[in-house]
């Protein structure tokens, strides 16, 4: 599809600035998103091209404003919902729970 992922030739993103001693993951959640994606792949319910296709379904404006592993997480959630492993309400409930926990911790400190 002619989505935001097909960036070749687009202007306006600024220079590519390689990071010195770049870590494999910048945040712990990225490590988890990567691991869960690979582990879920071994369920055998989809293939790598379906995974890439799922990431490309992210709305274009959102895609350009988010990071690599946010794309991965979007694609994974989409496939897990599509194949009936999880309901969108379950993901929303978990996100709400984590938000409450974080707000609680912020209030304590």
């Amino acid at each position: 599809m002619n989505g935001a992922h097909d960036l070749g030739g687009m202007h306006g993103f600024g220079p590519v600035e390689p990071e010195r001693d770049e870590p494999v993951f910048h945040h712990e959640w990225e490590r988890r998103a990567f691991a869960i994606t690979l582990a879920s792949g071994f369920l055998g319910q989809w293939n790598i091209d379906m995974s890439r296709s799922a990431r490309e379904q992210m709305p274009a404006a959102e895609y350009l404003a988010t990071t690599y592993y946010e794309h991965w997480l979007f694609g994974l959630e989409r496939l897990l919902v599509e194949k009936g492993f999880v309901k969108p309400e379950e993901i929303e409930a978990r996100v709400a729970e984590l938000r409450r926990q974080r707000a609680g911790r912020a209030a304590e400190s």
Partner: protein
Amino acid sequence: MRVLTGADVEQAIRTSGGARVHVELPAKFKAGDRVVARNLHPLGHTRLPRYARGRRGVIDRDHGVFIFPDAHAAGAGQKPQHVYAVRFSLRELWGPEASERDCVLIDLWDDYLDPA
């Protein structure tokens, strides 16, 4: 349904297959052939970049037979076919102000290409 357990992770990662398909299939093109990338705009997944569509290039080499991602992503099977490194001049892709001596090599499947 398969389930990956902790003990199996290393072996599973090491042996999970790539996209190469070990079958003999006739190649539509050979090194040196002139080709044009089709002007395709599929609604599904494709690995034919927009900037290459409708552009003329030359087959640099034949990589062999691979799963066709467009079909595979759509759940339509592997549709194995040859993949080639196709050489496009920078000027063909980006116009007369691009560098004269540089080129881009793009890996493209048989179904993305026509003879030119």
